């Protein structure tokens, strides 16, 4: 019976872990999760692996870079910027 309750609570905590890690839960719900985690090593272990997953995403630095910006492509962008400034200037004058 006790292990059944544990599984149900584990499942509930499991469904809220991202919001918990994002600090998006109200204090009451947060406290409940912390109480559960304190007594449930498998859930702590799982929560920690999810936290590391998020950390990996946040610190991910791709090793592939875009090709260097070509001269024409840069001029195209600069031209768009200058036209935008020009249009704004003529609109305000």
């Amino acid at each position: 019976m006790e292990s059944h309750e544990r599984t149900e609570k584990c499942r509930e905590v499991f469904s809220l872990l991202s919001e918990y890690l994002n600090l998006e839960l109200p204090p009451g719900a947060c406290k409940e999760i912390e109480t559960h985690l304190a007594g449930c090593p498998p859930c702590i272990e799982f929560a920690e692996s999810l936290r590391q997953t998020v950390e990996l995403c946040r610190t991910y630095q791709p090793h592939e870079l875009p090709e260097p910006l070509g001269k024409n492509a840069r001029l195209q962008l600069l031209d768009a910027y200058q036209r935008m400034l020009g249009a704004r200037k003529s609109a305000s004058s």
Partner: protein
Amino acid sequence: MERDREVELARKLIAGEPEAFDRFVEHFRSKIFHYSWLMCGHREDAEEVAQETLLKVFESFDHLREPERVRPWVFRIAKNACLMKRRKSVFAPSQELSLDDFLPAMTPEGGHAKIQIADWSRLPDRQMLQLEMKEVLARAISELPDNYRSVILLRDMEELSTLETAQILDLTEDVVKTRLHRGRLAVRQKLDEYLRTDGRALPSHAEGG
């Protein structure tokens, strides 16, 4: 910190100070390229999306009323550019991921349930950032269904808020939260599988028991 720098560059560009132009282009071109590559799946498409997005950004810079919102504003334009590009390609249809797909298997051991996962706690962060792990992570993200991948990229990789992500993707905040969680669980599962099967992986608790 990075966002402060972006806001500063945006302010300068709005004020008509062109010395910020090249720094802005360099910074956002690289960000949009990586986002689009993971969204579109093709390097050439990602290069084009980066250019098309920046073109649109500069054409409409005076529409950016709040420089503080430059990052979500740029990514909203990038998302639309990606959508246009993807219509021309074959992509996996959106699908729903269920929480039950990711519930770890529980095995009773001496009255206490054990979750069968790799031992992540003994793997230092810096080791996890090695090239191979990066590739595993990028592959795990690129294999997510579109609707989850877009949320992970904006929330966890670009570190946009739940609200900003919801506005970019035209979703409610609750849907963003749900997709973020399921997307993270899917990525976690792929990394876990890798750690369990790769030669360098440490034995999991369950196997040790």
